[in-house]
């Protein structure tokens, strides 16, 4: 029998019993849908949870601190730091040369004086604040300077507005700490967008008790949460570099609390190329003489728990598929019983065992592919519904929503392919049974 004849026969047989076929396909679709949904949610949840551990940046990010490592703390995620050790351009170059490193981003920090609105002009703003009248006082703070082109590799989460463009010296982002200084409600972060602040970089004058400032006016265009360092303002590294140059042009005035910055960079953010590489990269940086911080143990621990969740979800999905497989087997066994005479007739007119086998396997494959496609679509729809419900809940709880996205393509393809293979496996026994039916027994009337 040709494949075409086999396909026609199988298709017509599938259509002949619409109710049974529909139930069989529905069982496969439910099983596949459940597995696709559970597998996708597990994969996406794992990605999101691990991503959360990166605090907005990649989970594979390692912070290199401007300190020597404490030998007793090397395997700790947040080690106690050793003595200060400046990070400079040569450190940056050395770290970039390490293996398994995807990217290295430098972070700068500059001590500044901030005058919130309503601003006066120049130093007049120093006396402009009056908390009793709801007006903000000028305050000391630090500006964290980064290369915003590398924002995706940094532990920065935008809460409102956007990040300043790379190289900008007229736009900055602030953290929620800013709201305390300006007496505003931090639950409404967008309220500060558009405010203009004045940032003063101090310089101790040689030989005197004088401190003078270089002032920059910048608009707040974003509110962020950041884990780069202590500082309420996040700006481009051009802004912090200019402030650093200004301060270095003065003298060290440690007695008045204005010491010259010892380290060119506050820290480096090193992104390893995979979670498995984090430990190696950290060890290599430690060998360079710097302390590192990374949620390495935490991620490993969370991954272990997530694997347990994966196994539980996988087991639930597998049970659903097993039930679907039993449905296929049962439906085909019924079909074999029903078609004993038909099978016999086919054999009587010359069909080989393999022809009968093909007839039933193709029939199962049709159900498997159809069920797999419907099930995958059902799974994707389920994910969308779950994402919607979860988002609604998180927002109602005053938390940020999560983007579950769609089912990963690989999971969808595996869903269809898996259902098809499952259908074939489930059909193997009934199909073999049909194929091995003795021709005479099958043609019962003879």
């Amino acid at each position, binding site marked *: 029998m040709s494949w075409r004849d086999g396909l*026609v026969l199988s298709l017509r047989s599938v259509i002949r019993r619409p109710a049974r076929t529909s139930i069989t396909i529905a069982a496969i679709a439910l099983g596949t849908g459940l597995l696709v949904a559970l597998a996708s949610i597990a994969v996406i949840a794992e990605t999101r949870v691990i991503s959360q551990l990166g605090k907005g940046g990649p989970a594979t990010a390692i912070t290199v601190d401007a300190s020597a490592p404490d030998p007793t703390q090397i395997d700790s995620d947040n080690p106690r730091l050793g003595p200060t050790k400046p990070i400079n351009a040569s450190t940056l170059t050395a770290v970039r040369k390490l293996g398994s490193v995807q990217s290295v981003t430098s972070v700068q920090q500059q001590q500044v004086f901030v005058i919130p609105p309503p601003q006066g002009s120049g130093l007049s703003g120093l006396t402009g604040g009056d908390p009793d009248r709801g007006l903000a006082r000028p305050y000391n703070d630090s500006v964290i300077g980064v290369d915003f082109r590398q924002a995706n590799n940094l532990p920065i989460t935008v809460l409102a507005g956007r990040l300043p463009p790379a190289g900008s010296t007229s736009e900055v982002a602030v953290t929620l700490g800013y709201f305390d200084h300006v007496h505003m409600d931090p639950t409404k972060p967008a309220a500060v967008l558009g405010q203009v602040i004045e940032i003063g970089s101090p310089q101790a004058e040689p030989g005197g008790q004088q401190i003078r400032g270089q002032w920059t006016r910048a608009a707040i265009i974003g509110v962020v949460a950041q884990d780069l360092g202590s500082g309420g303002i996040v700006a481009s590294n051009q802004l912090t570099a200019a402030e650093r140059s200004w301060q270095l042009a003065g003298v060290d005035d440690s007695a008045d609390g204005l010491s010259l910055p010892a380290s060119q960079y506050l820290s480096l953010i090193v992104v390893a190329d995979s979670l498995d590489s984090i430990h190696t990269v950290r060890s290599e940086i430690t060998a360079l003489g710097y302390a590192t911080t990374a949620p390495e143990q935490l991620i490993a621990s969370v991954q272990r728990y997530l694997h347990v969740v994966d196994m539980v979800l996988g087991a639930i999905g597998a049970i659903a598929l097993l039930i679907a497989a039993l449905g296929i087997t049962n439906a085909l066994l019924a079909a074999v019983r029903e078609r004993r005479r038909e099978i016999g*007739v*086919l054999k009587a007119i*010359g069909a*080989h065992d393999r022809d009968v086998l093909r007839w039933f396997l193709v029939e199962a494959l049709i159900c498997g592919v159809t069920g797999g496609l419907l099930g995958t679509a059902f799974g994707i729809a389920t994910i969308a519904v779950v994402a919607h419900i979860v988002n609604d809940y998180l927002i109602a709880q005053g938390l940020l929503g999560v983007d579950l996205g769609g089912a990963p393509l690989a999971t969808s393809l595996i869903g269809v392919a898996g259902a098809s293979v499952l259908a074939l496996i489930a059909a193997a026994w009934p199909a073999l049974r049909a194929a091995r039916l003795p021709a005479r027994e099958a043609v019962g009337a*003879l």
Partner: protein
Amino acid sequence: MVAADSAAGRGVAVSVRGLRHTYGRGRGAVPVLRGIDFDIEAGSHVALQGPSGAGKSTLLSLLGGLEPIREGEIWIGETRLRTLRRGGLAEYRSRVIGFVFQHFGLIDVLTTRENIMLALSLAGVPPDQRGARADDVLASVGLGGRAEHRPQQLSGGEQQRVAIARALCTRPHLLLADEPTGNLDEESAERVLDLLERLRAENGCTLIVVTHNPLVAARATRRLHLRDGELERELVEASA
């Protein structure tokens, strides 16, 4: 490859020697055929008669290669059936034998034309020839206009004519019919028998019919009576 005598009227078409058959084993064994010997000339029309349980259907299924021979021999032309394995028997059934069943045995999810084309496909007829041959054979049984109908859309007589067309489309050497009129009214039965006889003559094949019906048996040139698994007696008509 299965071989058989290629035409009627040229020697022995079927030769049966010492054929015995038992269903089951041990104490539950039921002997059905107890040693049968006969020859059938090519092109002849033979009726197998006998009461229920006499072994007619078993003999027909053994002749048709529907089950293996355990004891004795059957020769169909030059083919010794006992030497054929499952695959060889399937090929034998597709190329040498044509079956007509009491229950018609049409695949009800296929049209009449597709039923015939399936038999041609199994017999290894090239795809480009199947359509024309199916149409020819349907026309020869008077059902050219019913090619696209499903079996359930046809009367019993029409279904049996389609079954005959399917049996003959591969130009078999041996046509085996099991109670071919058992499910038909008298008028349809007459038409089917006329058709079988005409096509047998036209195709030159050997026809063996199992029947309880004396009228059907009367059309045969030779009648073999079975009783308790043995050949009880044989009647040969003077006029073929």
